[in-house]
């Protein structure tokens, strides 16, 4: 039986070029799984909220004085990380270092402010299921912020070592994608805990 002619591809990229590489897909699956985790946390919130009595919310009007600016700060850090990634893409290493450095710093400040926010709460992790869920959800998010800050710091060092070019930079794009996820998922957490009570959920 005559065999067919095998595929003869034209020139192919060797190893990851740009975002083209299995690593990009790998971080995509990680983000999908982590997003699911936060979806279950928020499911738990709305489930408990719906099945509990009207006094379930320990803070029917949560203060936005610190939380809102802190949220804006976190979202801005995503912009900084994106700007840093642009720096790698356009071979402006200084811009890249500034971008990753500022993003890393903003993430650190967010984490510290979050510690402060916890201290000002009038309830603890064992006060009620609301308190438990608040601290577990924001605590898990805080852990993700810490990991993200370490990733940004690592990317900063690697950029400083001049590892990357517009072609070889999958590590950068993967790390920045993770940071975007950490920031994006906070919007859902923030909306659930700080905004939906004002919309009447659970009151």
């Amino acid at each position, binding site marked *: 039986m005559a065999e067919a002619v095998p595929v003869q591809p034209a020139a192919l990229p060797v*190893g990851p070029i740009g975002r083209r590489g*299995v690593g990009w897909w790998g971080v995509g699956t990680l983000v999908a799984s982590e997003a699911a985790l936060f979806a279950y946390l928020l499911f738990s919130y709305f489930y408990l909220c719906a099945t509990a009595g009207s006094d379930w919310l320990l803070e029917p009007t949560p203060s936005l004085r610190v939380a809102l600016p802190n949220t804006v700060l976190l979202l801005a850090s995503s912009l900084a990380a994106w700007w840093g990634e642009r720096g790698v893409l356009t071979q402006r290493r200084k811009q890249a270092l500034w971008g990753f450095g500022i993003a890393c710093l903003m993430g650190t400040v967010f984490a510290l402010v979050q510690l402060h926010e916890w201290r000002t709460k009038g309830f603890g992790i064992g006060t009620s299921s609301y308190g*438990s869920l608040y601290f577990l959800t924001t605590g898990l998010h805080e852990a993700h912020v810490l990991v993200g800050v370490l990733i940004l710091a690592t990317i900063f060092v690697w950029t400083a070592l001049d590892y990357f070019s517009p072609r070889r930079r999958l590590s950068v794009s993967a790390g920045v994608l993770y940071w975007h996820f950490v920031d994006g998922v906070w919007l859902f957490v923030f909306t659930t805990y700080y905004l939906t009570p004002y919309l009447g959920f659970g009151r």
Partner: protein
Amino acid sequence: MKSADLRVPAVGPDSVPHQARLFELWEGAGGIAGFLGSVDHKQIGVRYIVTAFIFLVLGGLEALLMRLQLAGPDRSLLTPEQYNQLFSTHGMTMIFLYASPVLSGFSNYLWPLLLGSRDMAFPRLNAFGYWVYLASGIFLYVGFLTGNGANDGWFNYVPYASRPYNPGLNEDFYSLGMVFLGISTSVGAANFIVTAFRTRAPGMSIDRLPILVWGTLTASVANLIVVPAVSLAFLMLWMDRQFGTQFFNTAGGGQPLLWQHLFWIFGHPWVYAIVLPAMGMVSDGLPVFCRRPLVGYSLVAVSTVATMILGFGVWVHHMFATGLPGIGMSFFSAASIAITVPSAIGVFAWLATIRFGKPVITTAFLFFSSMIILFVIGGVSGFMTASVPVDWQLTDTYFVVAHLHYVLIGINLFPVVGAIYFWFPKMRGRMLDEKLGRWNFWTMFIGFNLAFLPMHLTGLMGMPRRVYTYAPDMGWNTLNLITTIGSFVFATGVLLLFVNILRSWSRGRPASDNPWDAPTLEWSVPSPPPPYNFAVIPTVASRHPLWEGRVPSAERSSISQGMLLDVGKETIGTTALDAQPDMILEMPEDSLAPVVLALGLAGVFTGLIMKAWVVTAISTALLAVALLWWLWPRRSLREREPADG
């Protein structure tokens, strides 16, 4: 772009010097470091299978002990607490440490061979997944062996699992162990997904995938999304028990049903995850012995995915007896009944394949085809309990125990044993003994049905599950004795499998490359396959590359000529849907990072259970270092510039 960034892959024929070059590139190191650092999917796959079978034996011994206790009324072989730990550990072992990992093992071993690739997309992640599975299995069994095993059933309902009612460390071992194991399942799922979409042989478009790939891919997508639900549930339980949180405590505004929701949002997709790949083995293996392609390939592939999509919407059928609103139950009941449609498609496709084929009766054929009968029995009893009033009558009786064993043993273990008979020659290069195989099959088949068919009746007569003994005048004595006898016959059958493997390991008849005259790519390489799998990357033109010319197919695949890719440790990356060559993938060398990372995790969880925070902190630091070492951009993998410096 620099020249090193792009290359036209050389295409040519297979040759001996070429194979020697590849062997040089792909052969792993020997010794202990080579063992611990191996990232070869074939080695990892076999490790998964062997480890899963060790857990199968442990879970089986636990079951036999329970059957001795239940052989007659009022027996006192086991105390109630011992019985609780045995049935819980048995369930945990079989469902989490055997049924899923054994399928991961087969898929790990087989996928690159089925897909015409040289390894999985993430070989180091693959090794990491195995080490975490092993470590978490040991962690869970340390609990059991120190008298701290899970004791609240595998689905572990609160409040009995809560600390006031369960003060020992039992539930803490189970909780932390499950969070630990979940890491292995998640990374494994991610690896399968990326492998399926990115590392297939050119031409293997998604309508040419073997059904096993469809099954494992579907299961992996589900696992990736649902495993976090159960990890979260167990984390909450551990915090409730150790840190005074109130997730499940009604006095603190918590909700015990939250446990059940989170558990079953995971739990029901999970039971499909531990049968769909096994159904895929039957869909791929059975046609080989029927000497014709599977009837209704596209329908079977689509129904595999449809089963899982419906499977996301049925979790509440485990909770019909908890007092939920009627409208909710009706929805979940309807969804559960609707699942019979895609399931039936599979059954009719297999039956039609046998009917329109020319079956060759081998041991593998017997295991694959008997699965159809067991699936129908287990499916019908499941369909019955999908109806709310029937479920109210039968829930928590032995009827449900009979159902779940028909499903899990029938659709997981029987296909898996069939798969061993089918693929052992490829893995070991030797055939298993067919005559002993017949004894193996009939002993297992008769023993299984003797044990579990009467159990439906035991349940209908009202015997509740999970009781450690029963009074003599309930009318359950004979049925229980029959089940005990059947379980020992069944266990003898499983023992015959091990005897066959041990005997054939070095003395079995040598196997050719394609001893069953099968159609798919894994049979085109030597038995056992070389470390690089394929000397040349095949080009695939149909679903059954080795049967072209016999069954209608317009084009011919190219097996003995293809891309050589012998410049480095390389394989081909292809586009997601139609598998056109897209890039050359640089594959990692053996690495100790995965095993070090898994050890770090083991340290973290050991510290958590002992509340030795120093241990946890040091282990976390070790984790961070190992991860940094792993992810550090390497020139050899072309993750950084200068690529050719």
